[in-house]
């Protein structure tokens, strides 16, 4: 008998776990709320640290998930937990009886408007990391016209309790360094500044791009959070921060400021979580059975988690997490689920 598995979310985590579970012989149904598969990856141009085209990676994921039943533009309307399975009614009218649910609802980019002092949506020359990726993809953005001085503000909506997020978003430092290099490549005469609190370049080759940004591109790294931004008479930006290494306040006039919006728990994911009664932690991300030993299992039996639904992750981490989640689903469906008699006991022991 082929078990039905419902995967919620068609981003990298959802696609990768769908592909793995399908290979294992399960009947996988994937739903995606937006009209397109790929999540944030579909909107990104190149990926750190090696500037691999995002389309290439996404293409591989989509090829892997070929044959999976995918419903785009589809959300969950209602969920009923039966004895062991879930009866899920979708917004497209279809009802799925699913033996396991994998939530891969990902993350939302922090809404940079909320950092009022940075003036995103108010000042003409302020944009976000996502806007810049869109520019790299399309080649047009009204804000970018041969900028002479470009700033990157790290930690926008990350490590900022006032913005509702105490933790680090993990990917912004590397993204900022990558984008700084790309902007220097596009505009070799530009001066580029990165305003950081700590450079959290923990991954393999990440330090290399940092060095490259300094050595080959002359990117200036300033240790200090951007504190406020104003617009000058000529439309340029006046940016203030402290150079905490020098221990002095600092100001600079910029032609463009890119805000490195961090990761926030997905709003859509939260709604689905509510339907499933999934617990969330203080940081807004879904709680897991054990952060170390069982980080792809929800505290609720039969519900699994993959990717940024359980906290900020880089893309390779997300994909590894998705594969691990697929293994967890498989273990559950072979070891616990089929034993109708001892199901409750087994869940107690092994979940």
């Amino acid at each position, binding site marked *: 008998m082929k078990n039905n598995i419902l995967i919620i979310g068609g981003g990298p985590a959802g696609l990768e776990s769908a592909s793995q579970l399908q290979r294992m012989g399960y009947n996988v149904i994937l739903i995606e709320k937006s009209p397109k598969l790929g999540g944030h990856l579909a909107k990104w141009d190149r990926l750190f640290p090696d500037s691999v085209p995002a389309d290439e990676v996404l293409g591989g994921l989509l090829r892997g998930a070929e044959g999976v039943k995918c419903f785009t533009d589809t959300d969950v309307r209602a969920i009923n937990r039966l004895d062991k399975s879930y009866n899920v009614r979708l917004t497209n009218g279809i009802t799925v009886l699913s033996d396991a649910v994998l939530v891969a609802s990902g993350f939302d980019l922090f809404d940079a*408007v909320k950092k*009022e*002092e940075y003036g995103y*949506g108010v000042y003409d020359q302020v944009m976000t990391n996502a806007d810049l990726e869109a520019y790299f993809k399309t080649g047009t953005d009204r804000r970018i016209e041969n900028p002479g001085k470009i700033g990157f503000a790290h930690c926008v909506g990350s490590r900022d309790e006032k913005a509702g997020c105490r933790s680090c978003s993990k990917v912004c430092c590397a993204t900022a360094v990558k984008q700084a290099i790309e902007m220097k490549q596009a505009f070799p005469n530009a001066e580029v500044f990165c305003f950081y609190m700590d450079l959290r370049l923990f991954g393999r080759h990440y330090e290399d791009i940092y060095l490259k940004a300094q050595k080959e591109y002359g990117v200036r790294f300033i240790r200090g959070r951007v504190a406020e931004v*104003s*617009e000058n008479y000529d439309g340029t930006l006046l940016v203030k921060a402290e150079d905490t290494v020098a221990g002095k306040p600092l100001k600079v006039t910029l032609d463009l400021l890119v805000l490195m919006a961090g990761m926030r728990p997905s709003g859509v994911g939260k709604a689905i979580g509510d339907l499933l009664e999934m617990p969330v932690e203080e940081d807004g991300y879904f709680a897991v059975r054990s952060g170390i030993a069982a980080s792809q299992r929800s505290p609720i039996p039969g519900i699994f988690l993959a990717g940024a639904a359980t906290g900020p992750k880089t893309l390779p981490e997300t994909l590894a997490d998705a594969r691990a989640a697929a293994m967890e689903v498989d273990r559950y469906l072979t070891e616990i689920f089929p034993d109708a008699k001892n199901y409750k006991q087994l869940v107690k022991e092994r979940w």
Partner: protein
Amino acid sequence: MIYEGKQKIWSDYQKDIPDDHYFYVRSCIRQSFFPASEATFLDITRNRLGKDIFETEHHTTCGGIAYHSDTIPQETVMTIIARQFALMAKHGYENYVCSCITSFGLYCETLETWREFPELEAKIRENLWKSCKLEFAKPKFLIHASDLIYKYRNQIAAQAVRKLVNVHTGEPLKVVEHIGCHYSKMFPSKGVGGAEYPYVLVGMIEAWGGEIVDYPERRHCCGFGFRQYFIKGNRGYSLSNTHKKFESMEPFKPDLIITNCPGCPYFLDRWQYVIAESTGKTYGQDGHGIPALTYEEVAGLVMGYDPWDLGLQTHQVGVEPLLDKMWVEYDPAKKFLGKNGKDLGAPAPCACLK
């Protein structure tokens, strides 16, 4: 600048302002700096808008100046404040309107502190009873006087005899708005429009036909800063603050500065004189300064009050060029006449500031 972006933020920071029955508390220093402003406020609200505004001669200072100068224990300040509130309740009011920003900030701070620490509130209640035999009460609405003018800005515009427009060019006047720091920087949600893009004064200017100038150092303090000003040795810092603001707004060529705090119009006005006389630099047109007015004064001007009744002669920076631009009729001979018609004497002319 994307106007829609600011509108979106403004819509997030709206506060409830009651329609009528206000208990009005004056500001200590405004009464000596710009005494006509409060009088104008009462005249507009009572006589032009027909509101019930009550004030009592028994209210005192809020204690803010002493508090910010670190010369008074917090409990004492809170008891003074509790007495003010008790007076309001005693007279049957629950909408507390204060004229001073320092007071407004301190009231907000005190109410928040009481909310966080009920045991402190209990203690103050006891203090109040022990010292004044008054019943403790808290206002239902805490409002700054500028909030009221903001609320009735459109009614004022309807009664206006002129707009904030340069009659010679037909262009709207360029107005710099400056809120007092303690209006919304401590508690953004307590101020109309929040702290980043405060709307309370912007709303008035828009309603009365002016154009807002958004200059880089708009967030910066006027330079009052209690300890910076009170001690002469620190006064240079106060001056430098103001200087920084003027340097920043200079390229925008503003016609007028509008403020809602006791200290701001005073320092933005007087320091222009000090900067001019000590460095030779002036920021208005042709060696003039930029008039820094209170919101009541601006409201009075658009509603057709006589400039000398509004107390515009108490400003160091001459307001005549602004009056000319707005086509306000005035009698230069009456500029320095007292209320009783006696000549107060004109101040000595400045060397640099016209």
